[in-house]
């Protein structure tokens, strides 16, 4: 029998799981409020997914186009999210993003500059104005390094390569700790905490073609689910339209949207710029309908409308998919993305250095001379842990969530650049509110040994079993299943097959076996992540079957239209009393009418309103 008292215990007021942009922002805020703050992460500090973000962070600073305003950012976000976003979250995000970006500059971030010496901003899909503060095409690196360097001088305790396994609760049902495992040694550790913030990112490793790293096994979703919290909107998985297609070994690696933001065009095998044929009605009045107008936009004509390549990601991904289906795909089954014909070689190398490098090395292709081959790749989870907009707390007292692992902000489809700013805004709010929660507690709760030993046993059983399924092979089967049955275009029969296979995989998982010892054992880590990925995949597939419409990133070929009636509901999954997953369709709260008015105004009306407002405040 396991003796829990022998396991090392560390106490913190606030414990954060995940050290990407969201977790680090939260940690900085919590420690700034005097909390003893700990942050655990699966990789080394500075290696979280955030480091890979390329294009930029969206904030209505108005440095490049003064007409920008939080209201327009908010309107763009809601329209991009097909109005399923949590209204309040989208409002908070649009309002707070500028000040958080400026704070990042204060902490040492060195953004690209405008001629006037301010933070430069670039165009991106779905954003009305140049809005993305950026550093070439390595904005995420700048963000994470800045937060990391700022955070280490603030007394935050970092625990690297330390995997959170499950959450502990006290008799009142509040969270009180987390059981973790040191990857290096395979030994366990218990963190006691008065409040816990999950900032674990997404679950894109459930698909075969993905832009996500090994870390993206949906751990936050599964930890929250097991702790009794609710997951929401998991059917909305963003497939980024432009992942690399060739060579096979790099399939899925991201090609930043900045390539299109900087003027890159999409072509099919016949050389047609096909995006002009896929402009949805909702965006028709704001999108260029001729190549000539698109060219004027690129040249900076403020009257020209944006090129259709910059439509939202769901639209572009579906368009590429349709071209391939119609037999007009590129050599390896995608589309051609060409910037060579639109920009000088010098510009390309300056604006997109890491893309230039990535293609040169990995595909032996010079993007200043040739077109890239691109196709959809799994990229981002709009759904996640259901939280309160203002406090970011889940339905479990003391359990908070922010960043990609939280739901609501992006609705049915996220706009590029809105994630990095989301990390700053909601990381900050989570840090603030989790601190408040921790302050309301007089001390730490006693750890329930039964709970803790069960978590540890679940983990060690995988190693101790005599024989069983190979975790790598199970993972591969899961990826194939999700790719084929729960992919970009979904249909009832396939989704049902997908769920059947998931049930089978869940059975197989019960006998999963990792060979070798407990020390830095990737096979074991893979098996531990697989539990979480299976919970995530099941929630995705079950929600996808329930939502009988097509909206944003969720496309059902058997229900091809966006249905008004479905706008009133979110789909929630949680662990039922019988231990099985339970799905509920819940009615969305009534939004603030002022926000509805802003989101639904025409762009002309809204712009006039802002001009008037500014006149008022200036006089």
């Amino acid at each position: 029998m396991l003796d829990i008292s022998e396991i090392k215990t560390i106490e913190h007021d606030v414990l954060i799981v995940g050290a990407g942009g969201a977790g680090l922002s939260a940690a900085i805020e919590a420690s700034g409020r005097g909390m003893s703050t700990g942050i655990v992460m699966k990789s080394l500090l500075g290696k979280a997914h955030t480091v890979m973000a390329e294009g930029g962070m969206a904030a209505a600073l108005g440095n490049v186009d003064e007409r920008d305003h939080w209201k327009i950012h908010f309107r763009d976000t809601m329209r991009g999210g097909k109005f399923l976003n949590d209204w309040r979250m989208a409002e908070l995000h649009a309002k707070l993003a500028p000040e958080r970006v400026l704070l990042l500059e204060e902490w040492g971030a060195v953004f690209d500059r405008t001629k006037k010496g301010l933070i430069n901003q670039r165009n991106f899909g779905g954003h009305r104005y140049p809005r993305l503060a950026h550093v070439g095409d390595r904005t995420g690196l700048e963000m994470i390094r800045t937060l990391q360097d700022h955070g280490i001088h603030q007394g935050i305790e970092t625990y690297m390569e330390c995997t959170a396994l499950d959450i502990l609760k006290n008799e009142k049902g509040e969270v009180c700790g987390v059981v973790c495992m040191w990857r290096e040694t395979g030994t366990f550790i218990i963190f006691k905490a008065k409040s816990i913030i999950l900032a674990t990112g997404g679950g894109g490793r459930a698909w075969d073609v993905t832009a996500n790293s090994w870390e993206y096994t949906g751990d936050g979703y599964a930890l929250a689910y097991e702790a009794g919290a609710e997951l929401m909107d998991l059917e909305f998985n963003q497939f980024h339209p432009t992942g690399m297609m060739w060579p096979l070994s790099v399939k899925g690696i991201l090609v930043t949207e900045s390539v299109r933001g900087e003027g890159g065009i999409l072509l099919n095998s016949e050389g047609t710029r096909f995006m002009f044929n896929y402009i949805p009605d909702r965006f028709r009045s704001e999108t260029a309908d001729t190549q000539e107008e698109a060219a004027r936009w690129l040249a900076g004509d403020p009257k020209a409308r944006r090129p259709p390549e910059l439509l939202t990601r769901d639209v572009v991904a579906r368009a590429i998919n349709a071209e391939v289906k119609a037999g007009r795909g590129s050599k390896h089954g995608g589309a051609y993305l060409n910037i060579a014909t639109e920009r000088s070689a010098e510009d390309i190398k300056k604006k997109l250095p890491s893309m230039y490098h990535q293609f040169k090395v990995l595909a032996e292709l010079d993007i200043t001379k040739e077109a890239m081959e691109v196709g959809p790749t799994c990229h981002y989870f709009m759904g996640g842990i259901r939280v309160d907009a203002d406090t970011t707390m889940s339905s479990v007292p003391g359990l908070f969530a922010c960043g990609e692992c939280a739901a609501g902000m992006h609705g049915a489809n996220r706009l590029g650049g809105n994630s990095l700013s989301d990390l700053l805004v909601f990381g900050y709010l989570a840090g603030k509110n989790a601190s408040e929660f921790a302050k309301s507690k007089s001390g730490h709760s006693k750890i329930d040994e039964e709970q803790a030993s069960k978590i540890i046993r679940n983990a060690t059983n995988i190693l101790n079993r005599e024989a069983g399924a190979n975790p790598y092979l199970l993972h591969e089967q899961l990826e194939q299943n999700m790719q084929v049955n729960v992919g970009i275009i979904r249909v009832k029969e396939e989704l049902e097959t997908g769920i059947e296979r998931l049930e089978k995989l869940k059975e197989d998982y019960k006998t999963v076996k990792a060979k070798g010892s407990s020390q830095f054992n990737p096979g074991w880590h893979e098996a531990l992540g697989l539990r979480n990925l299976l919970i995530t995949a099941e929630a995705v597939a079950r929600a996808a079957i329930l939502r009988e419409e097509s909206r944003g990133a969720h496309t059902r070929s058997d229900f091809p239209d966006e249905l008004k009636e479905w706008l009133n509901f979110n789909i929630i999954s949680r662990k039922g009393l019988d231990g099985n997953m339970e799905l509920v369709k819940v009615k969305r709260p009534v939004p603030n009418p002022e926000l509805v008015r802003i989101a639904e105004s025409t762009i002309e009306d809204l712009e006039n309103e802002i001009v008037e407002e500014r006149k008022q405040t200036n006089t």
Partner: protein
Amino acid sequence: MATRKFQIYRGDNEKGEMVNFETEVMEGMVVLDVIHKIQAEQANDLAIRWNCKAGKCGSCSMEINGKPKLSCMTRMNEYKPDETTTITPMKTFPVIKDLVCDVSWNYTQNKRIKPVKLAPESKTEKGYVMYQKDVDRAQEFRKCIECYLCQNVCHVLRDHDKKDSFVGPRFMIRVASLEMHPLDIEDRIPELKNDFGSGLCNITKCCTDVCPEHIHITDNGIIPLKERVIDRFYDPVTILGRKIFGVRKKKLPPLNP
């Protein structure tokens, strides 16, 4: 597609051996793909680090045929098909297991560097004012992905193990990125000489050669820093000037272009 031979280090800091593997290599594969394939099919517990698979996170550093590299950006077609490829962990840091090293020393160095401090005069309600030409240099250093390959090859650390007296090239350019930030007003020159060991670098440029981000570590970073140390501590004219006028303030970019 062809079967190719590999020798991979397996073990820890105390004991270990080179283990032979054979596996199919397909078009376009990088070394990291090969390791993943071996891991999935033949050695489930083979330890490595990786994250982005696109040269952006600096996790997958190792030595391939003795050369320090990012394994995710090293294509198999760089090597002859009939040659055996050897894969070993970075030599300068203690091995935890197989290809994974203990790089925690680097994190402690970073903590010793004073954080950024911006000139308040340059702050406006639209943020700080600085121009692209002012930030180009700092941005070059900020491209660093902390792969520690430069730390791994620097002979001061690798052969002479002077980890207690030299922070290494990575942290020299971290200091440079702060010192050359157009608005930073902190002074790190004394500790550069006294604590960070700037004098120990003898400009062999091995660090620059291995940097996957092509940062001009020595020419643009370390040499200018060394010059600042010399100006401050050894140049009689500037020492005298400083006695009279104090440490010269940075000239800040104008608020209007």
